[in-house]
């Protein structure tokens, strides 16, 4: 187990270092100058140069990489060019929206998907299965921004139960803040749940064909017990993999939903930073996300070992 853990950790660290180089190199070759963007069409070239100097953009590339990477090691993520505040403050503000949103969406998606997957797999080929998988197909196919708009029209415009968008901040109270995250969480969760339900179903069906399931049934275990104790547990590995991927996506890939609900999330921070060429923000946030994805994968890898004892001994 320790060897397994150490190997995973080493891979994670190497990935991080490599990613930091790639991220920095790729972003620095993007055309566009944050100083010109800030000063607009009427400023002279001399003035743009002056601002570039003030922002420290004229230092050599290698030096800037070392400064930045060195800062990351001591958890100093640099200062935003456009906002001129520490990047970490921006990220912290945005995570206060994105993290709860991702967690709620993930919880909703799991709560919906696992029972639907179980239901479908145990009624494979029957009417209930067809209806459930048809709905899942629809859930995957429907664009989530459209679904989000429909939710807004029903629950915000028509029923006026929740705000149509915006985020009042946790300072306004837990309930108003949660309220504004409800619709986006549902809009995010449903397509994810549809995917997860399909994965759960197919993983279960595969497991249900295994010999040991027949053996379990033959020794007299009730179907329900076989399904939960033997089948679901063995079908968890693909499900956990998908869950890990979904969490990473929900943390930063939710720009479209953030735009529709005008939420100040991490996705929008990155998007805005890219359009304004606030490269230091993009680089630092991307690195944080890389770290988050690696951490999630690490947790998923470890959870494989928990659900599947063979993985523990094999390593």
């Amino acid at each position: 187990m320790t060897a397994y853990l150490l190997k995973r950790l080493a891979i994670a660290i190497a990935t991080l270092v490599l990613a930091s180089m790639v991220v920095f190199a790729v972003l620095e070759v993007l055309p566009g100058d944050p100083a010109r963007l800030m000063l607009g069409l009427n400023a002279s070239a001399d003035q743009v140069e002056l601002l570039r100097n003030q922002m420290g953009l004229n230092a050599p590339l290698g030096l800037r990489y070392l400064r930045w990477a060195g800062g990351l090691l001591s958890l100093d993520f640099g200062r935003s060019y456009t906002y001129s505040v520490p990047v970490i403050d921006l990220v912290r503000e945005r995570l206060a929206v994105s993290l709860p949103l991702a967690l709620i969406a993930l919880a909703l998606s799991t709560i919906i998907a696992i029972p639907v997957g179980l239901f479908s797999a145990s009624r494979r080929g029957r009417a209930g299965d067809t209806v459930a998988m048809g709905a899942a197909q629809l859930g995957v196919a429907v664009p989530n921004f459209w679904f989000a708009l429909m939710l807004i029209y029903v629950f915000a415009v028509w029923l006026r139960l929740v705000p149509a968008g915006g985020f009042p901040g946790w300072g306004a109270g837990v309930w108003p803040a949660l309220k504004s995250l409800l619709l986006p969480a549902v809009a995010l969760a449903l397509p994810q749940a549809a995917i997860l339900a399909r994965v759960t179903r197919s993983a279960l069906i595969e497991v249900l064909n295994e010999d040991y399931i027949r053996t379990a049934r033959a020794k007299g275990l009730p179907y329900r017990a076989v399904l939960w104790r033997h089948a679901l547990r063995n079908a968890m590995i693909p499900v956990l993999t998908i869950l890990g991927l979904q969490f990473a996506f929900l943390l930063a890939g939710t720009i479209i939903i953030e735009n529709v609900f005008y939420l100040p999330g991490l996705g929008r921070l990155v998007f805005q930073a890219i359009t304004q060429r606030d490269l230091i923000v993009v680089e630092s946030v991307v690195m944080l996300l890389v770290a988050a994805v690696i951490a999630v994968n690490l947790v998923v890898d470890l959870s494989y070992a928990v659900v599947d004892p063979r993985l523990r001994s094999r390593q």
Partner: protein
Amino acid sequence: MRLWKTILAATVLALATGTSAFAARTDLVIGIPLEPPHLDPTAGAAAAIDEVLYANVFEGLTRIGPKGEVLPDLAESWTISDDGKTYTFKLRTGVKFHDGTEFDANDVKFSLDRARADNSVNAQKGLFAAIDKVDVIDPATVKVTLKNPQGSFLYNMGWGDAVIVAPETADTNKEKPIGTGPFKFQNWAKGSSITLVKSDNYWGSPASLDKAEFRIVPDAAAYVPALLSGDIQAFPFFDADSVAQVKDDPRFKVVIGSTEGETILSINNKKPPFDKLQVRQAISYALDRKAIIDGASAGLGQPIGSHMSPANKDYVDLTGRYPHDVAKAKELLKEAGLENGFKATLKLPPPAYARLGGEIIASELRDVGIDLEIIPVEWAQWLDQVFTKKDYDLTIVSHTEPNDIDIYSRKDYYFNYDNPAFDKVIADLNLTSDEAKRKELLGQAQKILADDAVVGFLFELPKVGVWDAKLQGLWENAPIQANDLTKVKWSD
């Protein structure tokens, strides 16, 4: 599905205690599309900065009114010397900054000197270029001496980039703006909203609103539901394509006004074959403005024939200079030796007017034999490739700065246009303050640009405002990019 019902029921129950209505409102939530990068109008070109702070938090010596006129602001009155080089401003007294400190002539000197200093990164530094020196006569009087007479000086001092700041707070205005206006800054929830509240020590007539929140709504698809749900009560810059959804709703007012945004098909005047006058004129004849306006601005833009807003008092109607005439365009191309047409690129920045207009223009130019390759670019690329490096053939962009016809005389500007006769007119204009004479010069300037077909003049960008029908006092036009809330109130 049972779960769905449970969630729904729980939500209904929990929210039953929700919203309640107020009788006489004094608060307002305004939707703006872009978040300002910071809150200092003297340190950035982003229109979003002025859209929140101009006239509300910060004030200048003069200010621009709703019709684009110059009004007194912190300067109560002024006198101009006969040679047009000395402006003596009489300042208002009893004016306080929001932090409680007094405003006086030293703040004016500080602000102007700071904006024109060598290390200044004021985005409109050119506004201050004519200033030779600023002298404090007494706490309520400032004398500004110019290097040469400048007809637009009082107008220039009304820009957001020329607002008066205090030396103590100038460096922190980006995060915590301190001005003299009727509203003071309260809070900025980054990515979400900026809140202003009424200032209790304002020198002029106090604002009717107690609180104004600017909420950032980047996606046009969210505008209509935000209005319908009552979350946001005004979008001063609405999306032209969504107007149909609220036009017939009596709860809202749809106000179509004008901006200072001349939307043009910019041409690289030095790059062959665009260096030939006939080619540029052929392009102008090939353009069908009506179709472009319908497609790119939902039919709301006003056609232009030169670089001037039809709302401007010095506007000359030159839209008839190049009527849509395919045969004439082909003839001109033949004269230029290009009867078989040619290929070129059209770089389009992100705004809808450019992307939609670009498709139409490409098809219109194809009709006369010019084959355009459309290249979509983002703003950063556009600024880098087109504006700075001049690596382009054609592009579409709206020039939103007011009274900016002089850009055609700037050396090294991205049009690559060079006409000494035009430069002479602009140089004369800068030295002229007589209104009648200025009007004549501006007329000449517009005609030269049209004759030279420097660019393809398309239309004036419309300002589409949508707000609650009970709301009064928001600007109909946008002579400068601002959301002046000083006269805004709820009727009831």
